[in-house]
């Protein structure tokens, strides 16, 4: 399992794009927003938490199809399936690797991008916390979507269509934490819900992803 994780991380570093691409996309989205809505700082302050969450979500979505597609093409997925690893473990490790290469950099970069959008003072902490808690759920749910569409030729667009509705609860609670945090309101309820979703999907969804992957491999 650890071997698989280190291999995926090493591949992400070597192949480039793993760490960089999602982050660059996040940056560009954030930079484009003021062009779209105008430069008034008051407005930007208000929408900053939501924009940053949407940006992180889209950046996450961008790299999902790489989770299984490469291993599928070069035959590694077949070989992994015959290896002494449970399929549930493989998909969990894949999700973890995706989070480390995509989610974690986004979490770390988000406060810096918050400056660009004039995020309110107390918002930085809660933006960071909500993303740190929410992006793992995005990776796990995305892994399920990637497993569903792994054998398909034009799976990328279909996968977005399947995954985005599944992202709704995470986005709502995550952005709510960031928004309430920025406005100085109580964040406890959405924070607990967000944590519940993250731990819930991390515990249960890998079983569905593994079942789907087995069906796609046969």
């Amino acid at each position, binding site marked *: 399992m650890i071997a698989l994780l280190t*291999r995926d991380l*090493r591949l992400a570093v070597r192949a480039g794009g793993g760490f960089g691409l999602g982050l660059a996309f996040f940056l560009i989205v954030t930079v484009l927003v003021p062009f779209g809505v105008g430069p008034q700082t008051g407005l930007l302050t208000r929408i900053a938490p939501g924009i940053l969450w949407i940006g992180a979500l889209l950046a996450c979505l961008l790299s999902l199809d790489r989770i299984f597609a490469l291993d599928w*093409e*070069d035959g590694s997925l077949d070989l992994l399936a015959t*290896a002494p690893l449970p399929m549930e473990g493989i998909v969990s490790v894949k999700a973890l690797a995706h989070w480390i290469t995509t989610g974690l950099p986004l979490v770390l970069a988000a406060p810096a991008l918050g400056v660009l959008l004039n995020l309110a003072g107390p918002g930085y902490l809660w933006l960071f916390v909500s993303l740190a808690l929410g992006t793992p759920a995005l990776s796990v749910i995305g892994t399920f979507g990637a497993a569903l569409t792994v054998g398909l030729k034009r799976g990328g667009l279909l996968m977005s269509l399947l995954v985005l509705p599944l992202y709704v609860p995470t986005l709502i609670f995550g952005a709510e934490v960031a928004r309430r945090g920025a406005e100085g309101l109580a964040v406890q309820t959405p924070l607990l819900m967000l944590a519940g979703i993250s731990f819930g999907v991390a515990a249960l969804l890998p079983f569905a992803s593994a079942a789907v992957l087995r069906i796609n491999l046969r």
Partner: protein
Amino acid sequence: MELTASDLTVARGGVPVLDGVSFALAPGRALVLRGPNGAGKTTLLRTVAGLQPAMAGEVSGAGERIAYAGHADGLKSMLSVAENLQFWARVFGTEGIGSALSAFNLDALEDRLAGTLSAGQKRRLGLARLMVTGRPVWVLDEPTVSLDTASVALFAEAVRAHLGQGGSALMATHIDLGIPEADDFDVTPYRATPRAALRDEAFL
């Protein structure tokens, strides 16, 4: 413990291709599946390796004892030769890739990225992977494709050594592997009578 297939029916895309296949593979023995293209050799191997379910019949002595090598080598072009092997060694919980490297004459290429290898070198690396799995039953699909004569000899040597240690090998090919002591198993007589896929039966 021997690998046995009893009365096995295998299907490709739900349509049966081989019917009633039975064989036994004792430790120290090699079995070569023969038959024309599309006869179902690959499907049989994938079924034995547990990648797809059998339609009928049973396979025993397989599962966690099998190291499978299919048409694709499963190499990562951005990892070096040694890193590729080390990865599989760690996945299978074994140690030391030295003997696998030297058996397939890959020592000099150890630090090259797998993506820069020639087709034959990649194939050798794919076969070297078998040695680091530490599994007793090798299931190989067209193992000598794109290998030159010298490399085929290396491969034969590696298989012989594996058999000598009490391992066994099940291979599908239509070219000479240079392993005369292997038994031949022609799948042609087991070709399934043309009939519909099982899951379509409800609709016929």
